[in-house]
């Protein structure tokens, strides 16, 4: 996607409603909560992480590091992981997103995805590292999720852009 296309599109986008952001996060929590098992669990992209990263990149003043941390705490409760494990990972992720926000205008989708891979790898390593420190072992297959999360990025980006544009076209 050329640089001009993104730039032109972002200009006609309407401000995002809080309901949209909240719904997207809830849907992501729901998708994470589906009964994944075995290989599928390892392949599962972290929907919450991807959605949080999207909002941190596009609207860092609406959903920033603080709220990401709060969502992380909820994810900790949902997964019964240690308190703060997801929260720490999502904080790092959100920071990556906020920093990337400044450069967002310069990148097309492909370049963004490369950056997203880096941020995801960082967040996943933070999570795995905490687990390693507390329990003393790491399941390496866990990092497959990092790749699938990154693969989810372009479709999610396009989908969200389209959903944000829709009301404008109607008017």
């Amino acid at each position: 996607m050329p640089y001009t296309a993104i730039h032109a599109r972002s200009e006609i986008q309407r401000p995002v409603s809080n309901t949209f952001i909240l719904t997207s996060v809830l849907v992501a929590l729901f998708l994470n909560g589906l009964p994944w098992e075995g290989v599928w669990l390892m392949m599962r992209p972290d929907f919450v992480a991807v959605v949080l990263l999207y909002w941190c990149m596009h609207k860092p003043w609406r959903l920033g590091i603080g709220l990401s941390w709060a969502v992380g705490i909820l994810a900790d409760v949902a997964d019964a992981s240690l308190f703060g494990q997801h929260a720490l990972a999502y904080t790092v992720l959100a920071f990556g997103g906020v920093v990337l926000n400044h450069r967002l205008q310069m990148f097309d989708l492909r370049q963004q995805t490369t950056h997203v891979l880096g941020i995801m790898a960082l967040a996943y390593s933070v999570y795995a590292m905490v687990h390693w420190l507390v329990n003393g072992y790491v399941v390496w297959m866990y990092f497959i999720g990092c790749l699938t999360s990154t693969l989810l990025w372009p479709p999610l980006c396009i989908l969200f852009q389209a959903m944000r544009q829709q009301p404008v076209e109607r008017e």
Partner: protein
Amino acid sequence: MESTQSFRFFNRGPSPMVRLVFFAVLSMLLLFVDARYRYLESTRSTLSILVSPIQRVASWPGYLWQQMGDFYITQSRQHNLIAENEELHRQHQFDAAQLLQLQALQAENQQLRNLVELPLRNEFSTKSVEISYAERDVFNRRVMINKGENADIRIGQVVMDEAGIVGQVTRVYPWLSEVTLITEKDHAVPIQVLRNGLRAIVFGAGDTSQLSLRYMPVSADVQNDDILVTSGIDGTYPPGIPVAKVIKVERDPAYPFANITCLPVAGVDNRRHLLVLSDLPGMPELPAQQPAQASAEKRTKIKRKN
């Protein structure tokens, strides 16, 4: 919107870096407190009230899928169903015969125990529970069951299915409880080899659905296909319930211990309905010179860690 916001210099609050450090430190503090002292269980169960609706909704697709599967089975495979029914009837008759024998044995056992004045083995009651969902974490082998404080589930209660031990309740929420499976890394169950009464401890392997019998000398009398049952000497697991079956024994004289792999007898990974045992008989008081309280606490601590 973005272009106007990049000019807002003063009302943004702290910079992202400051926020990152603040929340990272906060998370690490929570991690430390949770991993080390487990003070936050009440907070966790309060927050679980917020999260559990989402989880309930998320477990519907799986449930519907199962229902649909059941529907098609009843529609298309009636013959199979009839055959299965017959098979179950046969099994039931067979079991009933064995059960009668068991009752006779139980009576005999009680008589003998009366004769030698041993305390009786107490019965326990069971509660039937259903798995709400498995935990979405590659690292852990835990499941959530659909009863919690409301059904008087307690931490440390034993969970089994019709074949053997499945795990142990490790956390209790108002309407849910978390069960740590015996295949969880370093989860320990004290066992006896059924064939010769050898006592040992079986540990979960963590990354596979297997168990391992650690710290057994190379010369230990363990063979393939040995059944391991709970020894009951820890006071947590009732005695005599099947836990695992030995599938591989590797004896390498270079190492002091044999490498023994077992498979759980119970359907640890593929059951939906489980039983929670309650009202287990308590342990007799330990002798006075050993502080009973302290060692008991230590034991539960170790259990919980696992």
